[in-house]
């Protein structure tokens, strides 16, 4: 810093000038780098930021397993997994652009603050050139914003809120996971086909942003097919006992209960609803039904028997028979002894997609990576032909409608795929009102 004689007047003046949009120093002013954390040596560092404590710790652990597997495959160890089925052949199993892939891990604690602190330390201390992971939308949006400012790429993990690629979308952020709108669009026709179009739905919704977008999406999709929405009730996050929200359902003429809950809330609300005999009820001459729009196999275990026969949607399931899924399940299962979760799948795929984009672009520069990923079409990663849309950095691919399995053969065999909804049916316009209000901005290379 230069020594200048700063008078009060001059400080105020310079402040006003700077405030008016002076070119500000960027996060890292060390001149040697062309962009943030440009990998200089023989290795490149990726940051895996997953929940290791708190309610989603198991999901985080599964994500981490997938990342380690992906790193092995990228570095040419193991059986190569989905690298063999991936439509792009830019990756050669010698790391990324010949640099060995190294990684650091951190704990998001499923809190925006902790997640950003952890991501920051990866960027500032460990020189990570890409951050990925997470198991909730709040964290995804928060970390995505940070990566945009810091000039690194963010490859979202499990995040289902419309906002991640809607009003909070960022040029440096990419989401492979599906979203609430897609859940609604995929689920509604199946619901209409099985339960009829003359249904009255009662919504219980976790009272935070993800819950709201989920509720909005599924309500719009079902109403379009003739369903009525009787009531939408917000429940506190982590309510524990949902009895006082479920008994009012009994008093209405609703014949479907939609639980816009995830994780522990989903387990508890579903368990409570079944306890109160909702599934044995007949209303308006129809069997009462429960729907869980977003299913997670890991969490579903907590609900035990109660999920049998319940419809929901999921991003991916290990029982898929396509070549890519099979290859992934095989290498994951061989290494860890159990099948991967949808969170593990999306994280594995995101890592591969990032590496591939770097390889195709020939550079780690975030702007080059963004360019390589935008509008990129690929196949062989488990969900059929997929498009990374340029307008909002959301993947468009088939969505699975699943149902709790009646006769599971093992503790992992909880869901069965009812229908694979084609990508075209869940595609929406980039300016769809549920996604309005944000802008990608420009890619930031630091």
């Amino acid at each position, binding site marked *: 810093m230069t020594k200048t004689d700063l008078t009060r007047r001059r*400080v105020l003046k*310079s*402040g*006003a*000038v*700077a*405030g*008016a*949009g*002076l070119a*500000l*120093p*960027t*996060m890292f*002013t*060390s001149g040697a780098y062309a962009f943030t954390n440009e990998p200089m040596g023989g290795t490149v560092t990726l940051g895996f930021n997953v929940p*290791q*404590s708190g309610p989603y*710790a198991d999901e985080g*652990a599964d994500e*981490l397993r997938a990342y*380690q597997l992906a790193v092995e495959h990228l570095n040419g160890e193991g059986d190569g997994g989905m690298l063999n089925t991936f439509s792009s052949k830019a990756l050669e199993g010698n790391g990324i652009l010949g640099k060995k892939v190294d*990684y*650091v*891990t*951190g*704990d998001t604690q499923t*809190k*925006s*603050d*902790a997640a*950003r*602190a*952890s991501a*920051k*330390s*990866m960027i*500032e*201390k*460990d020189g990570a050139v890409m951050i990925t992971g997470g198991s909730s*939308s*709040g964290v995804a*949006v*928060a970390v995505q*914003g*940070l990566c*945009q*400012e810091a000039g690194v790429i963010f490859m979202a993990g499990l995040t289902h809120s419309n*906002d991640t690629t809607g009003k*909070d979308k960022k040029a440096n952020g990419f989401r492979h996971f599906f979203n609430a709108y897609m859940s609604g669009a995929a689920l509604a026709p199946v619901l209409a086909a099985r339960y009829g179009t003359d249904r009255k739905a009662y919504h219980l919704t976790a*009272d*935070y*942003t*993800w819950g709201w977008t989920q509720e909005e999406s599924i309500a719009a999709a079902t109403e379009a097919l003739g369903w009525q929405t009787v009531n939408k009730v*917000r429940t*506190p*996050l982590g309510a524990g006992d949902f009895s006082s929200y479920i008994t009012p359902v009994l008093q209405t003429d609703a014949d479907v209960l939609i639980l816009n809950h995830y994780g522990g809330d989903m387990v508890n609300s579903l368990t409570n609803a079944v306890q109160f005999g909702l599934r044995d009820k007949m209303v308006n001459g129809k069997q009462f039904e429960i729907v869980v729009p977003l299913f997670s196999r890991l969490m579903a275990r907590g609900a035990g028997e109660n999920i049998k026969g319940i419809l929901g949607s999921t991003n991916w399931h290990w029982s898929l028979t396509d070549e890519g899924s099979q290859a992934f399940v095989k290498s994951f299962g061989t290494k860890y002894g159990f099948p991967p979760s949808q969170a593990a799948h999306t994280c594995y795929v995101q890592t591969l997609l990032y590496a591939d984009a770097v390889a195709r672009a020939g550079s780690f520069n975030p702007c080059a990576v963004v360019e390589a990923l935008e509008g990129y079409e690929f196949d062989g990663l488990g969900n059929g032909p997929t498009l990374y849309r340029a307008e909002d950095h959301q993947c468009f691919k088939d969505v699975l409608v699943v149902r709790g399995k009646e006769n599971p053969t093992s503790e992992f065999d909880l869901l069965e795929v009812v229908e694979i909804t084609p990508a075209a049916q869940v595609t929406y316009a980039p300016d769809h009102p549920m996604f309005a209000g944000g*802008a990608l*901005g*420009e890619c930031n290379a630091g």
Partner: protein
Amino acid sequence: MKKNILGLNPKDTKFLLIVVFLTLFTPILLQPFAAGSELAQFNGGYPDLMQKIAIFGIFAVGFNILFGLTGYLSFGHAAFLGIGSYAAVWMFKLLTMNVIPGILLAMVVSGLFAAAIGYVSLRRSGIYFSILTLAFAQMCYKMAYSVLTPLTNGETGLQLTLNDPRILDGAQQGSSLPVTNIFGLAMNSSYKVEALGRVFTFNVGFYFCAVIAILAFYVAIRLFRSPFGMMLRAVKSNQQRMTYTGLDPKPYTLAAFVISGMYAGLAGGLLAAMDPLAGADRMLWTASGEVVIMTILGGAGTLMGPVLGAGVIKYLENIFSKINEGVLHDWFSFLPDGVEDVVIWVFARFTGEGWHLTLGVTFMLVVTFLPGGLIEGLKRLASRIRNGSQKRDKYDDPDPEHRPDPGKRVAGE
């Protein structure tokens, strides 16, 4: 006692100078291991962690003004931290990215909240006071997470957007978000110096926090030594006796509550200034608990203790949580295979996903063996080194005479 221009006695001046030295050289002191070495994992000299330590140091020092002096244990101080953050981010959104107005507003708003909550809560004492503050803070948290989302952006946290007005900054230029700055100097700009095989990062934001932390610390020293501080100690030792002498303790405790609330607001504002995102999680009861724990861990009632406690907890959280099995594998690869697996298994329980365990064990060990907190440990260490019976600074004693008498607790009427 002779006092210098700062209004401090020589001992305190020396103390303050040590603090200034430690703070300003943090980027060097926290980077003791050469880059690339196995132990580089333990380096904490990167901007985010240093900022967090300074900020939570301020938070804990402020909390200690209330708890350490008056003995009133607030379990809702994180609410003021959160409110401060929201206020600051709103200022960045509406007025200017210059951090000064944001931080000032943060202090004012949280001061107002503290006055209101303090006025009500201080009508009760002891555990009843603690639960009242806890209830207020939990209400703030729950509302911020759900109903007040238009104001707080709920789960995601309040953040900057491209189309915020920012009246003073003029029209938005380009399509990337502006950064927080102080009169044009960006908070996130850093100057990196490579020397002695280490990379030292001198970050504007950290030095900004550091200067404010030193100021906050200085104010705290003055407060501890002032007649007002004396009054607060009187509140702690015996309120009844104080009332008999014709003094009303209420205004003093309320003032202490508001001051410490403003410290929390300042910390919240700084958090937002370093990283313009304010999440509701900052107000959760565990966050309130964290500052209580920081203060006790370091040494309640001492000046330096809370800062030390804040540093230790933030360091553990950020450094230990990142040591995964891969890192452990690198460290212990020299061991024979069987032994290595066992050693890694043991260490893995305390690092990475097990970092909470380290935290819990640290709490238990410190409180069991160092009743006065970490500062007590340092003192014992120092006196052992000097090998003499050093006279203690009476103000830095955890003052045993003022601790609740165990007999009183169980006594009924």
